[in-house]
């Protein structure tokens, strides 16, 4: 974990309200593991003070990139920033995905919307190629399909409105795949909480291991404030664990799902 002022190399809109930000961070980039995140202070924000956490998408040489969607004050301010401007970054943070070992289970990646951003580095560093299941509301919510195909991975797309790929939820083709063969598979998922809960349930029913990257509100990002806690199994009971430090990636069997609020 390092705190550094980094320079923006590029910050471009890819589709719709999705952007790709590349920063030069020579000391941080080589340390990044798949599933880790960067905690970014967007200096032009005046009255919104907290850092914003972003999954790290790609690492190239001394740069890393993030994919983000403009959803609030922070991301809107970030989208206005230009190459040459500076950001304060604390990274790499968190406990990421377990990179598959040679000969291990075939990885099945499950991503919802910009959850896709957390999965690319895992696919790239995995010695086994697998299948990426990616879902979104509309065609524009399907990110980096091409990048995964270029790595030699099969990509199965679902959209809720049927504008691209199969119509429906990302869990449909996943279930179909697990029906055909469930042995020797491992799931890795990142996306909205209901999707993660569904993937965790499917993993349990099919007795397939699964790692879930949890998406929780964060504040400090380094384990101090106890904002981002989730319930994690501990013996016969549960305890709160921090998504920023013990996570964001958890074994699906350990996650205790809270009642929908």
């Amino acid at each position: 974990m390092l705190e550094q002022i980094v320079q923006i190399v590029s910050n471009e809109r890819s589709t719709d309200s999705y952007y790709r930000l590349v920063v030069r961070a020579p000391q941080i980039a080589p340390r990044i593991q798949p599933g880790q995140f960067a905690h970014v202070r967007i200096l032009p924000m005046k009255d919104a003070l907290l850092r914003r956490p972003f999954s790290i998408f790609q690492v190239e040489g001394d740069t890393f990139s993030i994919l983000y969607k403009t959803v609030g004050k922070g991301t809107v301010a970030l989208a206005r920033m230009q190459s040459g401007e500076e950001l304060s970054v604390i990274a790499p943070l968190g406990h990421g995905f377990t990179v598959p070992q040679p000969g291990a289970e075939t990885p099945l990646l499950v991503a919802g919307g910009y959850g896709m951003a957390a999965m690319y580095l895992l696919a790239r560093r995995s010695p086994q190629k697998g299948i990426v299941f990616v879902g979104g509301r509309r065609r524009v919510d399907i990110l980096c399909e091409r990048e995964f195909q270029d790595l030699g991975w099969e990509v199965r797309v679902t959209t809720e409105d049927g504008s691209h790929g199969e119509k429906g939820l990302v869990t449909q083709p996943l279930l179909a795949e697990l029906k055909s063969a469930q042995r020797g598979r491992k799931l890795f998922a990142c996306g909205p909480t209901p999707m993660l809960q569904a993937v965790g349930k499917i993993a349990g029913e099919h007795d397939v291991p699964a790692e879930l990257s949890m998406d929780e509100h964060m504040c400090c990002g380094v384990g101090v404030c106890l904002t981002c806690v989730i319930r994690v199994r501990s013996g016969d009971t549960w305890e709160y664990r921090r998504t920023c430090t013990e996570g964001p990636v958890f074994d699906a069997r350990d996650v205790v799902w809270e009642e929908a609020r």
Partner: protein
Amino acid sequence: MRAETQSPESRAVEEGLEPDLSVSIGKLTLQNPVTVASGTFGYGVEYAQLLDLNQLGAVVVKGIRLNPVPGNPTPRTAEVTSGMLNAIGLQGPGVDGFIQKYWPFLSTLKVPVIINIWGTTVEEYAEVVRRFDALGGVGALELNVSCPNIKEGGAQFGTDCNLLGQVVAACRRATTLPLITKMSPNVVNIAPYAKAAEDAGSDALAVTNSYPAMAIDIETRRPKLANITGGLTGPCIKPIAIKLVWEAARAVKIPIIGMGGIQNAEDAIEFFMAGASAVAVGTANFYEPQTPLQVIAGIREFMKRKGLRNLSQIVGSVQLTR
């Protein structure tokens, strides 16, 4: 004679004097007046990779009671304009868990470690104090009588002068360690509470805790916190905290540790002028972990620029006449 005709600034420069930033809290001496607010700095170890803790005035850890505390359901925090709300619910490992898990690291620090403690009864406060007194090596104990986010304990003690006096007195009997009472801001007039803590044997006051507050998500019509209400902190509370420090400082002789929205040295100096002898950086740690070190450097710079040799020349120096 020549020296007297020179401005203090030029004299300090000429003599190459470094200002003295040290400050005393009871029998405890801090190398500089900048500490951190309990609950914003974990148990120190979390930030050790990002800054040199030994440069701080003191490390103040998150509140500990006798037994482990699970904390509140989520969401526990919400960002608001120039600040944030929290209702963590004092999640913590309890005295034994703290000593086992965090004390081995904390006890290696060269700067004092101040342990924030709380309980649900006067007796529990005193028991926790006894446990830390027996531990050895603790710099001071901060009595949290002002957490707004738990049903029992905390704020009920801080908003009742009689109870406050009882808690502080019971803790005083249990230890010779310096005691800092962390005051509730949720009172009409802080002076009698400050006096009650002083009279009961507190060595210093921490002014102040977070302000009870609430925010609503207008899309869902739900409160932004699972706890419904929480404590407001950050730069938005600074002017309110300055006033409370000023009022408390006029009521007591013991030193005050001022806190509330400090982001830079200018903020800290404002607290000194209002009457604080030391300060704590809180919410700013969450977004800029270097803040305490930047504040220390900025105070030193200010003192050099003004030709000030020690902090007592600033403390309480607000000029009320125009």
